[in-house]
């Protein structure tokens, strides 16, 4: 267990408030929580990549960032039309 893995584990605790807000709030607030959860997960994967010394894991973080942006914009589109 090196410090990078500890940092990733601590960072993942931040998902708890994101889940609570996403589950309990009205539509735009839930989307904000989803985006912050994407930030948390992407950074945790970066830290895990360094901790396990596998640079290929960092590619997953890049994909998560790109896809969370695309998903977020799609949600915004839906919210503007029907929200």
């Amino acid at each position, binding site marked *: 267990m090196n410090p*990078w893995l500890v*940092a990733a584990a601590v960072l993942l605790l931040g998902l*708890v*408030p994101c889940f609570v807000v996403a589950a309990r709030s009205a539509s735009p607030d839930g989307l*904000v929580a989803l985006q*912050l959860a994407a930030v948390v997960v992407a950074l945790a994967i970066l830290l895990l990549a360094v901790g396990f010394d596998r640079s290929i894991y*960092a590619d997953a973080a*890049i994909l998560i*960032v790109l896809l969370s942006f695309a998903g977020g914009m799609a949600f915004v589109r839906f919210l503007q039309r029907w929200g």
Partner: protein
Amino acid sequence: MSVKDFVEGLLVVGGVAVVLVSCLGLAVGRDAYDRLHFLSAGGTVGPILVAAGIVLEAGLDGLKAILVAAIFLVTGPVLTHAIARAARLAEERSRGAGGQR
């Protein structure tokens, strides 16, 4: 423990702390605008600090971390603005003030 390790730890711990505080603020915030404030703070400062720490530690990982931080830096404000605009439009609609899209 060398100076490099110390700076590395400082950057990573700082980045993790910023993101965690943003998550707490997200839970405490009252409306969407309060929460967007924490999304944009945690989504720019956190990745920059963590990427800086990783760059000091690793080679190829460091480049990918910089890429992740750069993408967050470019897409974060766009998304924050778009969500704020959607929230504002929904607010106006619920007040009956007009349906501009």
